[in-house]
């Protein structure tokens, strides 16, 4: 029997980016907040310091900062006719664990979604007609617009100190920035990072082809910065250990470097680490959450009563927790009914290698996770899809995030995959290769979804999450188109050999692609097709808010973190100005 603890005003399930920002906002507003984190507490000093932090084998290969698959993982299959099997190692995508969550080990690529992304179905049907979309696509509008989110994007970018160049200030195009981006109310808080040589080569070729290169917005800061919370970050040293690592230099925006120092000082906040939340408890109406039940590191079970439950774990874990708690009707792909688990989507990526002769030195080790030169000409709503027969797109660019010795071994096609010839080719090409990336959208479909696995259970005897996913045909066509454009740029960059291939079926969850797992607890305007209303409040249980990329009805072209930061402040605002004054549904049903 769980030991019942003293009630608090609010509990966050997970203390990563969304949990720490919301806890900080609510604690500052006077609420008693408990943050429950499954992993360990950790900070830049001493946990992320060198030389330990540059142990590529430990952190990049053995993935020390990621969720522990020996305790909990997920099962995967391509369609409902298959039997899903558990991922025994975390490799295809990398949910983090521990204080600060996945924002500790991210690359720092901090984008806004396009204006059209938030009204995706409306915009696509309006532009191309109702019969243009593949019948299996389940894309939806978000229930919130870009204009509503703009102040919250701005606030998040200023919290992080993002380094970039505006392309559109209040409707005025700005030279040097992304001319396709949605309007922004002011310039980035810090200027772009110094351009890498791979980026300069890409910029020249892309410009000659008539495209519009610009620097990628980066959470690895170009200069020292003190944010509005009074927390200071240092300048990046371009060491190339961002994704899969914590930053030892206080130069990457992470909860520890942007908000945690303020949060942890507030006596209204209490952090509990090493605590695994098992479920959200509901009262006998099923319409009100009473708190959460969790197990601490010693295995003792506790019930933490709370007036407000904020589900702030990684996207996949948010969905699983709702399913384990019986919140929202589980989605059934056969009938198309139910909401919890629907519209799981991902990201469709492909790459091209440009192999130079030995006179061109790329120095890929001088890098950061978001040091890139990019074009947005083939992203989302930025071009006419009419002749091509698909929706969505990709940004294309040279953003080589590292040249780490174990992971970075570009070799041209035809090179043996092992032995002396392979070793010779690695030595020959290591410093003379540029890798380009196409980072593409992921449409939601009727068949891709999340539910609970009927067979496999975690260390606490709870069912694992089951992922049913295959790349939609629409996205395969999209990837072929953008990869072709990328090959064209690669050839214009002057390489001796240019090689790359679009994304292909089947989806392989054992090869790393991205950690941009989205959907499953989506927001929207219609309770029949969404778990959450436009304020990320559960339609069915109004004192539960679910804040994560799990809310995305489909994934846009871009990395999801910037939009998640904006949604986090959007929710904080709704809680403080609406919900706390009058707890209850913020959108009538």
């Amino acid at each position: 029997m769980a030991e019942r603890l003293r009630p608090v005003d609010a509990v966050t399930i997970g203390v990563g980016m969304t949990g720490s920002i919301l806890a900080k906002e609510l604690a500052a507003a006077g609420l008693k907040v408990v943050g429950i984190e499954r992993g360990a507490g950790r900070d830049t000093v001493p946990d992320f310091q060198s030389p330990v932090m540059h142990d590529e084998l430990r952190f990049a290969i053995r993935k020390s900062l990621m969720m522990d698959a020996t305790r909990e993982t997920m099962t995967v299959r391509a369609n409902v006719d298959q039997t899903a099997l558990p991922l025994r190692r975390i490799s295809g995508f990398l949910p983090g664990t521990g204080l600060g969550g996945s924002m500790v080990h991210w690359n720092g690529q901090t984008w806004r979604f396009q204006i059209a992304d938030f009204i995706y179905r409306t915009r696509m049907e309006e532009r191309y007609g109702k019969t243009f979309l593949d019948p299996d696509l389940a894309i939806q509008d978000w229930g919130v617009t870009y204009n509503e989110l703009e102040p919250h994007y701005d606030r998040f970018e200023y919290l992080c100190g993002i380094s970039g160049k505006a392309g559109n200030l209040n409707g005025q195009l700005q030279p040097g920035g992304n001319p396709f981006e949605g309007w922004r109310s002011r310039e980035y808080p810090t200027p772009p990072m110094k351009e890498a040589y791979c980026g300069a080569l890409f910029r020249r070729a892309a410009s000659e082809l008539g495209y519009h290169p610009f620097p990628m917005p980066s959470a690895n800061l170009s200069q020292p910065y003190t944010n509005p919370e009074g927390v200071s970050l240092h300048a990046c040293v371009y060491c190339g250990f961002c994704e899969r690592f914590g930053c030892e230099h206080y130069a990457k925006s992470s909860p520890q470097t942007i908000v945690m120092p303020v949060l942890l000082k507030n006596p209204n906040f209490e952090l509990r680490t090493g605590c695994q939340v098992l479920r959200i408890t509901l009262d006998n109406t099923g319409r009100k959450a009473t708190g959460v039940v969790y197990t601490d590191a010693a295995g003792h079970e506790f019930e933490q009563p709370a007036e407000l439950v904020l589900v702030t774990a990684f996207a996949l874990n948010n969905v699983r927790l709702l399913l384990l708690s019986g919140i929202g009707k589980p989605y059934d792909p056969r009938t198309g009914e139910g909401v919890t688990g629907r519209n799981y989507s991902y990201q469709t990526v492909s790459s091209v290698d440009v192999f130079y002769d030995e006179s061109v030195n790329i120095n890929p080790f001088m890098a950061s996770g978001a040091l890139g030169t990019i074009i947005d000409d083939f992203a989302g709503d930025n071009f006419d899809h009419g002749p091509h027969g698909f929706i969505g797109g990709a940004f294309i660019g040279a953003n080589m995030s590292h040249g780490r010795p174990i992971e970075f071994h570009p070799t041209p096609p035809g090179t043996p995959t092992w032995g002396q010839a392979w070793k010779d080719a690695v030595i020959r090409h290591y410093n003379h290769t540029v890798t380009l990336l196409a980072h593409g959208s992921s449409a939601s479909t009727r068949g891709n979804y999340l539910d609970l696995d009927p067979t496999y259970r975690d260390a606490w005897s709870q069912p694992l999450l089951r992922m049913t996913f295959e790349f939609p045909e629409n996205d395969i066509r999209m990837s072929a188109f953008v990869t072709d454009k990328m090959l064209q740029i690669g050839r214009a960059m002057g390489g001796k050999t240019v090689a790359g291939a679009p994304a292909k079926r089947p989806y392989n969850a054992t090869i790393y692609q991205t950690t941009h797992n989205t959907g499953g607890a989506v927001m929207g305007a219609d309770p029949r097709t969404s778990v959450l209303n436009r304020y990320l409040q559960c339609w069915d249980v109004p004192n539960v808010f679910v804040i994560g990329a799990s809310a995305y009805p489909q994934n846009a072209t871009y990395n999801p973190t910037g939009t998640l930061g904006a949604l986090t402040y959007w929710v904080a605002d709704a809680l403080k100005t609406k919900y706390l004054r009058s707890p209850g549904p913020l959108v009538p049903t």
Partner: protein
Amino acid sequence: MRTRNILPSGMILAIVIAAAFKFADAQTAPRQPDAKHGADIVAHGTAAGAPPCETCHSVNGNPDGSGTFPRLFALPAYYLAKQLTDYKAGTRTSDIMQPIAQMLSADEIADLAAFYAGANAPLPSLAAPDPALVAAGQQLAMAGNAAKAVPACNNCHGPGGAGLPPTIPPLAGQFAPYVVSELQLWQRGIRKNDGGAQMSDLVQRLDERDIAAVAAYYQQVKSALPASAAPAK
């Protein structure tokens, strides 16, 4: 006496062509630094009026240990050349070093840097530092300070302060008074030639005792120095 052609004519042609290409290479390839010429300047100065470096930094780059002048031996050539170039351009300032650097050509700077990078010498015997100060310095150097959000110095300056060549200098075995004075210059914004504000920002979070501590710590670290640089008996 009749000379005998010992090589087939085709091979001679090949050698001539190769020699011609080598000549062409020599005209376009970057000049290789001349450490011997650097040694000359260290000992005798230059015709343009630059005084001999050894007057202050000693012949082997290992001055008296008072810390007025830094030890230069075994510093990366790129780093040394950049500092002299910055003095010359005024992006690093010193009433002593700027006029000297302005009398040095780019080639002379490269030669001097090559010489001192390859020099080596036993360190002078220095007074035993305060163990508590060294311990505090070691903490900052290896782990940093969470309360002040200062990362470990060794993140950039390498394990044991060995440096991260070519851009980041070693600190191991550097004289404490010199390190203190440079950190103070960084703090006051007089030294600011780090390129990305990495140093000038960080140092604002150090207090006087932090500075004394890291300086005391690094002075007595010998592990990263060439083996022959053990302190003189």
